[in-house]
């Protein structure tokens, strides 16, 4: 056969496979408000940057008449390309081919691109849209999942791993996203659960819709499985692209530098925080007042809102922000907020991203439910994550920093490199009311007017201890600064920490509380 004929033969083969599950299946996919796997890749990656591998892979299942079925590309597309010039490896499950079900060759394609990403040290993006295991392929399908989970774990902390849930992701399949760094979900499209509504109804007699069981909102607000919530696939892709600009390609690099820009001058930092430590404000306004271009990219916006995490840039360099949020649950630490912040701190540490912590914390949330939910071991994660992190750690105490909350929020004692405090900071063992009740218990009880006496003692305590100067006198705070000086001090700290190096004892790995 002459070459041009062979080329034509290749082109025909390609065209046939590129149609995936065929026009009917594609129409069905579109009717659900979903794009096809290939459209998704094209929408996400830089134009003409995608190079596909394994287009002609076929399954070799023989049982249940599978030998008579052809599944184009075995229901998953793999390859690599770029996002704003950053290299990424990607796989996208194709729901139009056998419901995106995972068989042996399907999983081998996924593990091939995972191995590639790890070898080439580039971020991996997985688009999940699959009915689950391909039952006809039996234990081979389970083996496939296991191989994926293993690679997710081995790659963790080496290359960034992003999971995008754009359809069902049920049963064992959910554990690949759960092992990755960031999970993206889209309203009405994403569905994640271990056992579906049908099984729950049969076994337990409880009726629930897929959406209420494991929809995008559930995982963004209740379970904490998802990190980014979007109203549409388009918005989701914008979030992924933006995230890629903030993170490095692997753990041996730092994130790319961007041209720095000043924050919005209309955000007057002195006008954000009320003097009274019991009054609320939005700590995101404080972050926006100091970060480059006032551009703060929040992560897990809808989960455990009493702590805020996300990325911004300081002088062009990616920085992770952790901040207590007085507007939500007074910014207390609890099971969920400790969990949320600790994981983010470990992410930043793994990928060479300095951490700035804004502190305004009243302490831990009291309650039987918190104690029984394990606030001890969950709270411990925060201490562990901050102590363990060797990236530059800079702390700004805005207002109150009481008790265990003070210690946990990147204090000097957990080896913060810089601790700054605003003049209104109150660094004390607990709030003035609680402290006065304990220290002056006898005086208050024996007084003729206990309420008046209590107020007097609270004021006495406030005057003496509700300030940053006791901590500053011990060197626990490096500088007491004016709010308007915050950005300058932060830029200075980030820039002098550029080559930070510290030695830690040799170990295989620690045993963090989980």
């Amino acid at each position, binding site marked *: 056969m002459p070459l041009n004929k062979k080329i034509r033969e290749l082109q025909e083969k390609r065209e046939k496979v590129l149609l995936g599950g065929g026009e009917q299946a594609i129409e069905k996919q579109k009717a659900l408000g979903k794009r096809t796997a290939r459209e998704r890749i094209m929408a996400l990656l830089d134009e003409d940057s995608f190079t596909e591998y394994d287009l002609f892979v076929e399954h070799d299942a023989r049982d249940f008449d599978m030998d008579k079925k052809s599944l184009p590309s075995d229901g998953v597309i793999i390859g690599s390309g770029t996002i704003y010039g950053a290299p990424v490896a990607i796989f996208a499950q194709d729901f139009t081919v056998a419901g995106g079900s995972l068989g042996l060759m399907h999983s081998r394609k996924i593990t091939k691109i995972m191995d590639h990403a790890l070898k080439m040290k580039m971020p991996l993006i997985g688009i999940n849209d699959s009915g689950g295991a391909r039952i006809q392929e039996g234990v081979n399908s389970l083996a496939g999942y296991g191989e994926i989970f293993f690679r997710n774990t081995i790659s963790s902390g080496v290359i960034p791993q992003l999971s995008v849930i754009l359809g069902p992701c049920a049963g064992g399949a959910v554990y690949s996203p759960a092992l990755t760094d960031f999970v993206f979900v889209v309203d009405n499209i994403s569905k994640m659960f271990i056992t579906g509504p049908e099984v729950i109804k049969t076994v337990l007699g409880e009726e629930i819709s897929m959406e209420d069981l494991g929809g995008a909102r559930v995982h963004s607000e209740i379970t904490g499985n998802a990190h980014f919530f979007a109203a549409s696939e388009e918005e989701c892709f914008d979030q992924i692209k933006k995230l890629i600009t903030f993170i490095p390609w692997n753990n041996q690099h730092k994130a790319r530098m961007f041209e720095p820009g000043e924050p919005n001058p209309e955000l007057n930092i002195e006008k954000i925080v009320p003097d009274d430590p019991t009054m609320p404000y939005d700590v995101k306004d404080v972050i926006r007042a100091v970060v480059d271009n006032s551009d703060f990219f929040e992560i897990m916006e809808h989960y455990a809102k009493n702590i805020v995490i996300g990325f911004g840039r300081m002088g062009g360099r990616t920085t992770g922000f952790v901040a207590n949020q007085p507007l*939500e*649950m007074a910014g207390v630490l609890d099971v969920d907020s400790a969990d949320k912040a600790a994981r983010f701190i470990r992410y930043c540490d793994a990928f060479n991203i300095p951490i700035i912590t804004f502190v305004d914390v*009243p302490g831990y949330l009291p309650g039987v439910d918190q104690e029984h939910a394990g606030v001890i071991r969950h709270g411990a994660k925060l201490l562990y994550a901050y102590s363990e992190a060797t990236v530059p750690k800079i702390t700004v105490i805005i207002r109150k920093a009481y008790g265990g909350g003070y210690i946990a929020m990147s204090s000097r004692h957990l080896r913060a490199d810089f601790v700054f405090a605003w003049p209104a900071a109150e660094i004390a063992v607990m709030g003035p009311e609680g402290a006065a009740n304990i220290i002056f218990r006898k005086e208050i009880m024996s007084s003729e007017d206990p309420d008046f006496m209590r107020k007097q003692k609270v004021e006495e305590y406030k005057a003496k201890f509700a300030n940053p100067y006791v901590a500053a006198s011990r060197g626990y705070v490096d500088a007491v600064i004016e709010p308007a000086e915050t950005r300058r001090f932060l830029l200075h700290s980030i820039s002098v920490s550029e080559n930070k190096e510290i030695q830690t004892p040799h170990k295989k790995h620690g045993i963090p509380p989980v």
Partner: protein
Amino acid sequence: MKEYENLGVLNIDASLYKTKISKKFESRKPYKAADKRLILSYIPGTVLDILVREGQEVKNGDELMILDAMKMQNKLKSVTNGRIKKIPVKKGDRVAKGTVLLELE
């Protein structure tokens, strides 16, 4: 300073904070100490068989009921001596987790 709506009050160490209160916190269940006279289903399932009658004396370790759950026939045994006061369920009932199965005197 901005003004915020829908603020509640949260008491932390005797300080009263004005802040938004989360749904999770608002809907938390108040703690109730367990009542040792009530035997509850520890798992959702179906009552397969009841092995005791109301008024019957039972001893620690006696089998009381068989609960079919998670593809298993679970034998419920008494952890105390006593007399059965009431059996609010009957054979074939499908019960949720925490349902009272037996009441001791």
